[in-house]
């Protein structure tokens, strides 16, 4: 009775757990759907060095229209330098990139009409107010004065900055400055919106507002490049993640594929009412993609691949064999584990190491 009533609940649980993965698949580069999307950014051997220091080392990638492309890596990985090249703020030492077919070297003016950026460190001149900065920004990006004012009002209210609109930049807190920086892109709504660590210094509720705004921008037609060293942010928002380390790309794929690339990366924990029968373990192990099963008396810990397919099979097996399941917990590898896999370091350790080296 218990097992029968639990079955649909468990199956819907797995459907829910892995639902985000299926979304990821529809946007992934390898799927049919993505192959129909046009390439809007194409970098080829993009390189930048500063006085002999190689900040970006021959990176090549493609970004598809209307995807959120995450650039993940520790501080010093080369993310910001890459973005500065894409926005034509700095010129590449060698290689190039095309944005909607316009080469960043030969057609920087055209590129700047397409791309907008919210910088990692807010770029606000100290005497200016958020209102002045943003209305001017809107007009520079092609809005009329009246529509710029209207849009600035909407965005400042959305970001809870309306009351601070007349304060000078030097009177704003770090979080407020960051909101103004992000507001520039929400007002501009460029075809390619680049956010460089958009939620650093922002409180939790503010982060959710910004994440939602980024998704909305994508849904309304913008392609988003999101540079971050926040793993959960990259995981939560990105359709594809490009992991950078020491100026190079070490991995590039959808978050779920990157996580699936870790052998035995998914973990299923099943708690049972009675002691777990040891005889079940070989049967569970025989299921495809199960890497390891650990018997913890009333708990089974199963290390597996392709959790979305494998976990329901395990639970089904237990239920069929009459094992009374009291709870289940599924955990995935984080992008930090992916980073470790490709670099041998966690993001924090990589950051510290890079800092020490400099």
């Amino acid at each position, binding site marked *: 009775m218990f097992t029968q009533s639990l079955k649909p609940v468990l199956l819907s649980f797995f459907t829910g757990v892995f639902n985000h993965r299926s979304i990821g698949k529809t946007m992934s580069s390898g799927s049919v759907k993505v192959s129909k999307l046009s390439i809007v950014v194409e970098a080829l051997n993009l390189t930048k060095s500063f006085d002999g220091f190689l900040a970006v080392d021959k990176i090549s990638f493609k970004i598809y229209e209307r995807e959120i492309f995450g650039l993940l890596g520790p501080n010093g990985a080369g993310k910001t330098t890459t973005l500065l090249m894409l926005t034509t703020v700095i010129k590449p030492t060698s290689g190039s990139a095309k944005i909607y077919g316009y080469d960043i070297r030969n057609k920087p*003016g055209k590129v700047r009409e397409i791309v907008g950026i919210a910088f990692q460190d807010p770029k606000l001149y100290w005497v200016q107010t958020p209102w002045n900065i943003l209305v001017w920004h809107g007009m520079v990006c092609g809005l009329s004065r009246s529509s710029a004012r209207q849009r600035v009002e909407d965005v400042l209210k959305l970001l809870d900055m309306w009351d601070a609109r007349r304060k000078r930049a030097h009177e704003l807190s770090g979080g407020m400055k960051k909101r103004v920086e992000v507001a520039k892109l929400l007002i501009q709504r460029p075809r390619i919106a680049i956010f460089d660590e958009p939620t650093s210094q922002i409180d939790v509720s503010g982060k959710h507002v910004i994440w939602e705004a980024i998704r909305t921008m994508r849904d309304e037609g913008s392609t988003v490049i999101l540079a971050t060293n926040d793993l959960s942010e990259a995981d939560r928002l990105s359709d594809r993640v490009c992991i950078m380390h020491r100026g190079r790309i070490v991995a590039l794929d959808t978050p779920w594929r990157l996580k699936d690339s870790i052998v035995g990366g998914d973990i299923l924990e099943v708690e049972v009412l009675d002691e777990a029968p040891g005889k079940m373990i070989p049967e569970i192990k025989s299921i495809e993609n199960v890497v390891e099963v650990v018997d913890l008396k009333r708990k089974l810990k199963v290390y597996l691949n392709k959790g979305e397919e494998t976990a329901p099979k395990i639970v089904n097996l237990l239920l069929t064999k009459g094992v009374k399941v009291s709870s289940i917990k599924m955990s995935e590898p984080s992008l930090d584990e992916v980073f470790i896999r490709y670099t041998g370091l966690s993001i924090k350790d990589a950051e510290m190491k890079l800092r020490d080296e400099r």
Partner: protein
Amino acid sequence: MNVKKVWLVAERDIFNFLEYRFLLLIRWIWFIFQIFLFGLVSSRFVVIENYFNYYASGMVTLMFYITALYIGYDLIEEAEHGVIDYLLSLPFSRREFVIGRSIGGGLRASFFALPSVLFVSWLIGGLNPFYFALAIFSLLLFSFSLSGFSISLAAAIKSHDKFDILMGVIDAFMVRLSTAMYPVEAMPRFYALISSLNPLSFASDVLRWGFNFKKYLLASPATDLTVILIFFLTFNAFGSYFYERRLEGGGWT
């Protein structure tokens, strides 16, 4: 070139300037002191005829000169706050940008200094309408040139301290070796030669034509205007060059 974009750049600099309230107030106090303290006292021992009028019109030119150079300081401060990267990412060409900034820097200096022109014209009591209009146009061009000059220098040097020191040195030469405060007739020959090549001398000169002050003039109004025009074209071209090549890639100290 997109005129609307150039104007937007200029507009930003003009509105920023209005925010420097304390600085503007101090500059006006300086002007009043120069005229009514130094000008009045020095006119009592200087043998040049009507020296007060000569000096007062020179001071007006210096108001244009000093305020037009502020734009370079803005550039340096923007670099310190990282704003340069933001500006470079906007949909302008570098040329539109530097011309917009020169115009903005020049216009704001002219707006700021214009009351001093009217004040001194009232003090002196004479005006030649045609030459006065020519003088205002020339001073506007002169302000644009100085803004271009200041931008070129700031972009070339990329250092707040060095820029500050260099501006002090340039100020000493430009102002002292010009006819803003005294005519070439009162200078040693070598100084007189250099002063008669200084654009500030020509700007002071054309304004004196406008004020109908016809003593100790350096050149004809047409020559004054030509020299200022050359100055304008040269430094806007330099500004554009340095902006294009030097602003990108950081390196500001």
